[in-house]
């Protein structure tokens, strides 16, 4: 069990570790999405998968291809940057939309609009 030619044992162990870390964290986030009660709790859970879940698997992929081709293969950084930049934007928009919908339907358990943000006549 010495690994493929060009892929030493330490690299295989590291790739396996990061793969398992990333997928386990993604699964934890998905279980959280399934288990939490309200939407505002649920919106936090998938970020586990998009930060360290995606990070672990992307690090594993970068490491694997870099060691395999014995040159730095770093274009997975594109996906890393993209996912970590876009997920907060998406979830922020989604949470604001949900808050807007809850407020306009006057559901319970939603913080009231205190008129501090951009309301005309309250400068």
């Amino acid at each position, binding site marked *: 069990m010495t690994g493929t030619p060009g*892929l030493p044992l330490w690299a295989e162990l590291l790739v*396996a570790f990061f793969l398992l870390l990333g*997928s386990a964290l993604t699964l934890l986030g998905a279980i959280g999405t399934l288990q939490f009660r309200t939407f505002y709790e649920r919106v936090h859970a998938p970020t586990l998968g998009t930060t360290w879940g*995606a990070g672990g698997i992307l690090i594993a992929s970068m490491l694997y291809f870099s060691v395999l081709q014995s040159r730095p293969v770093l274009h997975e950084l594109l*996906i890393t940057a993209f996912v970590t930049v876009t997920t907060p934007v*998406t979830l922020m928009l989604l949470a*604001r939309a949900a808050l807007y919908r809850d407020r306009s339907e006057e559901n319970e358990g939603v913080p009231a609009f205190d008129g501090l943000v951009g309301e005309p006549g309250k400068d």
Partner: protein
Amino acid sequence: MSPILVWAILVSQLLLVAAMACLTVRLIRGPRAQDRVLCFDALYVTAMLLLLTFGIRTGSMLYFEASLAMALVGFVSSVALAKFLMRGEVIE
């Protein structure tokens, strides 16, 4: 490829598929539209990660291109859906 890596990739793919199953249950069950959009967002990220593990398994770079395209298109569609929930239309 040694058995360590083969098993690690297999287990990691199974975990990702289990994550997608959990998200699909919430997608079907989710009481309101925002839960479904949230699950859709998490689902495309998980599918993208699954494609990356397939890329490691086959040693092919082609899967990377597919997952990059998924990351790009998924972000735009989630933002469009969130905008639709907020305003009732996407482009005003």
